[in-house]
């Protein structure tokens, strides 16, 4: 990495603090099946009446990043204009046998696995073009995964504002406290993107953090 790029990255958090944009490009990140597209659909349905894409129980349903521009969120007289990028789930391994457990043929499963690997690469590339990140974690799962650690580390290294969304609080074994304990340096908002639970608090935090 060149010295100029290193210096730019090192001071990016200061630079961004002084140069807030009118329109923020926000990436929705997280591991597969954390509820990223469900959250993107919830936000779009609430503020534009549209949806971002299809959701599924099969991991890696989103295998291409999707961009929706000009989503205006208004809360308590404060508004923020967002371009929202719904990214494919990040993973360190992709085994096509996992997809076959959902009834797919070997050919179909291998194709999905190949597309999923491309999606992971695309999601990582997007990190360089964002102004902030909504990191979605499944509150019923252990938050100390390598994917979570790597994404949070990269967002911190780039000096991007980060909001952690502890999703699926409608499920009985959800524990947003576990996520707070794992990443105490970042704000954590517990929600259910599917049921819309606590979603107004998330919009308030988005307006506060990215506005």
């Amino acid at each position, binding site marked *: 990495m060149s010295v100029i790029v290193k210096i730019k990255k090192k001071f990016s958090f200061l630079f961004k603090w002084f140069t807030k944009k009118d329109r923020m490009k926000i990436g929705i990140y997280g591991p597969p099946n954390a509820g990223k597209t469900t959250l993107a659909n919830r936000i779009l349905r609430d503020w534009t009446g549209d949806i971002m894409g299809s959701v599924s129980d099969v991991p890696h349903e989103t295998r291409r990043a999707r961009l929706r521009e000009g989503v205006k969120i208004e809360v308590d007289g404060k508004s923020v204009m967002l371009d929202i990028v719904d990214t494919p789930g990040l993973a360190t391994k992709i085994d096509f046998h996992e997809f076959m457990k959902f009834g797919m043929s070997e050919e179909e499963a*291998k194709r999905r696995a190949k597309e999923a690997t491309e999606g992971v690469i695309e999601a990582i590339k997007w990190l360089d073009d964002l102004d902030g990140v909504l990191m979605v974690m499944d509150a019923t799962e252990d938050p*100390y995964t390598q994917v979570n650690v790597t994404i949070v580390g*990269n967002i911190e290294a780039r000096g991007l504002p980060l909001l952690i969304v502890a999703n699926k609080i409608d499920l009985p074994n959800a524990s947003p406290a576990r996520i707070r304990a794992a990443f105490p340096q970042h704000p954590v908002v517990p929600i259910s993107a599917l049921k819309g639970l606590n979603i107004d608090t998330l919009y308030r935090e988005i307006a506060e953090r990215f506005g």
Partner: protein
Amino acid sequence: MEGVQLNLISKDRLDKMASMEKIRMILEEVKRGKIVVLESGLTPEEEAKLIELTMLEIDHDKFVGIEVESYPQKSKGFFGKIFGSGGGRLTVIGPANRLKTLQKSDEFIEALVSLGR
């Protein structure tokens, strides 16, 4: 003797290597079925690059990806962000079909290494 080969790489050796050199070395060893232990780990950017290159190497038959075990980065604060070196913490990397995380917290990692492929 049958077993799993562990490569323990010191911080001194890692410090002498360029990012891509480190990542290529890790991937080559892991693809051969070895477990790589890095004394000082990788930076978050290197971890992301490692995932990216891993995705390119997945062949869906012999190599399905990697398992990485490392601790979260410690918060650096204002001056740490400016003057900090950005080095990572102890990291263990292995083939996904051999290395499995059992339990993980910010100070403790329990993992299982299997002999079979």
